[in-house]
């Protein structure tokens, strides 16, 4: 390759350094490129290592318990550290029931809020209300727990649980007494407030992406506002389902707030006014106290079960939200 200097007839001595200089510059940039790429790729590999290490670690550390108890770990209700007998059924029950109950209560609320934000309120009000609802998500879980244990639990016991069990306790096993403050109901109530923001904000975004023409068509045919909203909701159903499952995933893994208000008693009771125990709570409470290897191993297996549950739930939700995001067209409300 000829250097421009050589063509212009400048002395050859001057051309060499410039050629070298450009070579050096080239080498430098390729070194820089290589280094920067290596750094980025290293970070990506690190993510893979962390997840692989996490799953591998949980499986390896729970071998002792997996071998001893096998599948009966999931069905046995015995949790007896003294005699080294462990079963996670009570925790599985507590986690699933408290989360589903919370979801059941949070769903109508979140949908109502999302509808109000998208279809009823104006731009300014939507921004303000969205900010307030998202503030709920910014409050740390431990603060929910402190508020729950000192304010909400006594209130629920006196004004909700006791009247309910007095009136319906004998006829409906769900509400059988004696009504306790720290209970499945309290845990579900605190979960409602905690998962409400995520369900609301995703549903809101999905509804905002529904084309304006859908509403206009409904209104032009003479439907009322609510009837047009029903059409929007029908169109947004898969995205909303994704939001619900994502909220469920959040509820399943929630630890501190639930630990403080659920009563931490390993039992399966048909009444939601009785204390219960969740998988996350038992790990939080007993992990540092686990004295024997089998105890630790059993707790880690509880963690493994929790991981698998949340993983499946989250993947289901992501697939739904993604498939909706791919299909949504432009032209929604903004």
């Amino acid at each position, binding site marked *: 390759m000829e250097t421009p200097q050589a063509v212009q007839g400048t002395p050859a001595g001057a051309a060499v350094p410039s050629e070298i200089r450009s070579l050096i510059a080239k080498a430098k940039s390729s070194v820089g490129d290589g280094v*920067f790429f290596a750094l980025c790729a290293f970070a990506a590999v690190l993510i893979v290592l962390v*997840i692989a290490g996490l799953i591998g*670690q949980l499986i390896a*550390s729970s071998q002792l318990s997996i071998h001893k108890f096998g599948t009966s770990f999931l069905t046995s209700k015995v949790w007896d550290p003294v005699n080294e007998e462990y079963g996670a059924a009570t925790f599985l029950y507590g986690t699933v029931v408290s989360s589903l109950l919370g979801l059941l209560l949070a769903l109508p609320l979140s949908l109502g809020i999302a509808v109000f934000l998208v279809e009823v309120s104006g731009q300014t009000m939507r921004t303000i209300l969205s900010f307030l609802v998202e503030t709920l998500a910014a409050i740390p879980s431990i603060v929910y727990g402190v508020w729950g244990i000192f304010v909400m639990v006594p209130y629920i016991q006196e004004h909700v649980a006791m009247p309910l069990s007095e009136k319906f306790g004998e006829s409906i096993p769900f509400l059988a007494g004696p009504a306790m403050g720290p209970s499945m109901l309290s845990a579900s109530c605190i979960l409602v407030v905690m998962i409400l923001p995520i369900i609301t904000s995703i549903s809101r975004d999905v509804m905002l992406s529904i084309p304006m023409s859908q509403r206009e068509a409904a209104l032009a045919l003479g439907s009322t506002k609510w*009837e047009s909203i029903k059409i929007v909701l029908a169109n947004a159903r898969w995205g909303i389902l994704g939001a619900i499952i994502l909220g469920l995933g959040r509820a399943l*893994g929630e*630890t501190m707030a639930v630990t403080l208000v659920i009563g931490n008693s390993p039992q399966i009771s048909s009444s939601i006014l009785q204390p219960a125990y969740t998988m996350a709570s038992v790990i*939080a409470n007993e*992990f540092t106290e686990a004295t024997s290897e089998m105890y630790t191993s059993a707790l880690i297996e509880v963690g493994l079960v929790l991981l698998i549950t949340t993983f499946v739930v*989250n993947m289901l939700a992501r697939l739904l939200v993604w498939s909706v995001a791919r299909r949504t067209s432009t032209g929604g409300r903004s």
Partner: protein
Amino acid sequence: MSERRLHFSRATILRRKITNNLMIGLCAVCVLLALIPLALILFYTVREGIGAINLEFFTHLPKPVGETGGGMANAIVGTLIMMGMSAMIGVPVGILCGVYLSEYGRNRFASVVRFLVEVMSGLPSIIVGIFTYALVVKPMGRFSAYAGAVALAVLMIPTITKTTDELLKLVPNTLREAALALGAPQWIVNTRIVLRAAAKGIVTAVMLSVARVAGETAPLLFTAMNNRFWHNTLDQPIASLPVQIYTYATSPYDDWHAQAWAGATVLIVIVFVLSVVVRVVSGGKFTVQQ
């Protein structure tokens, strides 16, 4: 005949109007119902907490049971230290991984990483605690600030990576092409052009993730543990605000409950100040200093 039909449709219209107003009214009620717990939580936390917040709270160690007063100075400092340390691990890894996904990520490996980042963002924080216990605490033989920081960093990374990835994709290709055409090597383009164009959003994501981990308790329970005294070095158990609040809230003493409320107030203030800074940053103009 026609009269009857008119009469019938009037009734229908009335019914539909009533349904309409009722349902929209119910939606408004839902909004109010959601705002009530928000107001109650903030009200109670500040009301109960403000009494125990004084200079002593920020400058003194916790007092033993029975003695009134004392503070959470060590826990506040511990939380700030672990926030800083976890940011030092989590921010570079998170951003670099985001750059990888956006700028070099047109291959199979990148889609695997993208999937794993999703998995990571859904991990229950208590599981991250167990993992860090096995990874750091067990080999070291003791609870430490390092372990706490690693656990928090793992929780921080997915948010930062996802946002970086999404924001870098929004940077127009013409910017990259123009820089490359001027002879800039790829890495200069990525660091000085692409990342800089998305700097505002990335800073927002970093602040939000730091604010999030500031309130995390579960992953610290068996990584950083707790410490009633000042930590001498970072390879020792260290106090943190959330764990201290948890310890106090579950104790049977009224003095400690008041301290727990005060701690909760300080924690909320820290998280909200960070959120407000994020709003200011993302609303105002921001450039990265070279």
